[in-house]
């Protein structure tokens, strides 16, 4: 029995020992060949989009998503647009580090978010918005690229743009409420309760407010009444432009600034035809006095 075992073992050992090519890779091509091929593929895919790409960049600080438009060419140049600002040219390159990377290697609108000198609202000096301009490419197809920031690990994606994206405000798909609104707001400040009915003062404001897309699906934020300077904001969620059921909430800063759990929506409506949002809300401030806010937003 032992003999058979020994013979079997011997034969088993001899069989693989004849195989010469032990060091060959499981892949047909070398690592570098495959890396070069994938970089070339990404490069040609980026360049091939006829109307460029709409980019969604979500810095680590804050909850906003910033939207850009990029058009890449095959000589390391990229044209960028942001909001309604004019297109500017800068450079980019694809580089193989631990992953294939897309690097925006000279300054453009994208770098304002990361700039430690604090170039956008909410950016802290020395830190910026903890954003990235050097991205690992997690996946890339003719329709979209999924990117991961190299240093702050932020999420970013590129979506193939349409002809309409090449001019005017840069718009991120999936956020029908993102954009500018004309607003009128009336905030009624009661000395004690609304029921007691003694009005301390009424704050009336109007003008234009911007609703940027947030990291949460289909949700935008917009300043709460006249308290934008205190970073009090509504969160408004609407999935499709034709929906009428708008979801309304307030941001954490406002939640922590009022009596806990006192925020109530008294009335809300959204008219998809005129783009008019009406909100009537209520809260009790930290001193116990009640406030009622009526605000109307009209899509510009």
């Amino acid at each position, binding site marked *: 029995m032992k003999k058979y075992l020994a013979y079997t073992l011997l034969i088993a050992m001899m069989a693989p020992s004849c195989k010469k090519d032990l060091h060959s890779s499981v892949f047909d091509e*070398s690592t*570098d*060949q495959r*890396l*070069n091929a994938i*970089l070339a593929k990404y490069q040609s895919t980026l360049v091939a989009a006829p109307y460029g790409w709409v980019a969604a960049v979500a810095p680590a600080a804050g909850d906003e998503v910033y939207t850009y438009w990029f058009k890449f060419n095959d*000589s*390391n*140049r990229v044209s960028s647009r942001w909001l309604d600002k004019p297109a500017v*040219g*800068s*450079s980019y*390159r694809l*580089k*193989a580090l631990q992953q294939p990377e897309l*690097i*925006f*290697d*000279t*300054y453009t609108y994208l*770098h304002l978010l*990361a*700039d*430690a*000198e604090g170039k956008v609202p909410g950016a802290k*000096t*020395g*830190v*910026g918005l903890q954003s990235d*301009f*050097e991205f690992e490419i997690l996946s890339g197809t003719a329709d979209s690229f999924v990117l991961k920031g*190299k*240093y702050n690990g932020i999420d970013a994606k590129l979506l193939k743009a349409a002809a309409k994206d090449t001019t005017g405000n840069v718009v991120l798909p999936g956020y029908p409420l993102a954009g500018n609104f004309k607003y009128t707001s009336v905030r009624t400040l009661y000395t004690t309760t609304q029921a007691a009915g003694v009005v301390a003062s009424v704050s009336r404001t109007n003008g234009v407010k911007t609703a940027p897309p947030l990291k949460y699906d289909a949700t935008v934020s917009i300043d709460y009444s006249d308290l934008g300077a205190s970073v009090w904001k509504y969160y408004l969620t609407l999935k499709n432009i034709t929906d009428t059921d708008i979801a309304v909430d307030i941001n954490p800063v406002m939640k922590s600034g009022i009596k806990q759990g006192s925020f109530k929506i008294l009335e809300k409506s959204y008219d998809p035809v005129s783009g008019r949002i009406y909100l009537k809300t209520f809260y009790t401030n930290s001193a116990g006095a009640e406030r009622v806010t009526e605000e109307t937003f009209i899509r510009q």
Partner: protein
Amino acid sequence: MKHLKLFILTTVIIAGIISCNNKEKLDPNITGLGGDSWVPTAVDKWLYDSIVKPYNIEMKYKWDQSEFAMDLVLVPPYENTVVPVTRDIISMWITPYNQASGDTTFMKRNTPKQIMLSGSIALQTNGNAVAGLAEGGLKILLFGINSYSSKDSFRVADMAHLIHHEYTHILNQKKNYPIEFNKVTPDGYTGNWTVAEENPWTLGFVTNYARKEPGEDIAELVSTMLVMGRTRYDSTLYHPFPGDRQAWNDPNAIQLLRTKEKIVVDYFRESYNIDFYDLQTKVQQQIYKTLHQ
């Protein structure tokens, strides 16, 4: 027999050669080998003609995180700041040294081989901002060039100060300055230089930063003397801070700074065969030209 030996020998040699010819195919196309590459633009061509070819200095402006410390939050420069910054750096730094040393040989030999540019300033965790760094005699990092303007005399003077400061480090890294320099104001160096409230001139220093350590002291002294010019430096020596009358004509402070000045002048002559006062004049002329270009 002789033929047989020859035959065997030839066979062995040929066999040897053939057996050695068992080449493994190397893949020459290694990604990233030879550094980054991109399609050169007008900026790249200008840099090549103006600073790479004549001085073998790489003016690196495209983002490369590996050039910077990881704890700094930085952004790359605007492309349109690269040429003005480089042009003014050449004008206020390389040209005066060329003039003072006679030709371009000195700078060809003694310049750092790379200048790395960052668009934003380097804000450190302790709140200080770093405008420049010099590393190992080979590399200078310049921060905050996005806000540079040739028309802003303060920014131009700052840039001149910065590049001369960093270059003094490079010169010191190549040839050490005399140890006597450290002994002039040994008690003045302090880790608390950022919050020091004394007038540094009264203690024998030209700036608060000079109080950090002797290496920074000599770099600050050299750059301050070069950028101020001899006349203004001499008058500042007697009347530092016009509002602070108590600091005027302080014989002790003047003596300390004059001692340091002499060490600097001797160091430039003995180590590099450069007349420091002549260099000072040339720097002044070039700063004037930069501001009036």
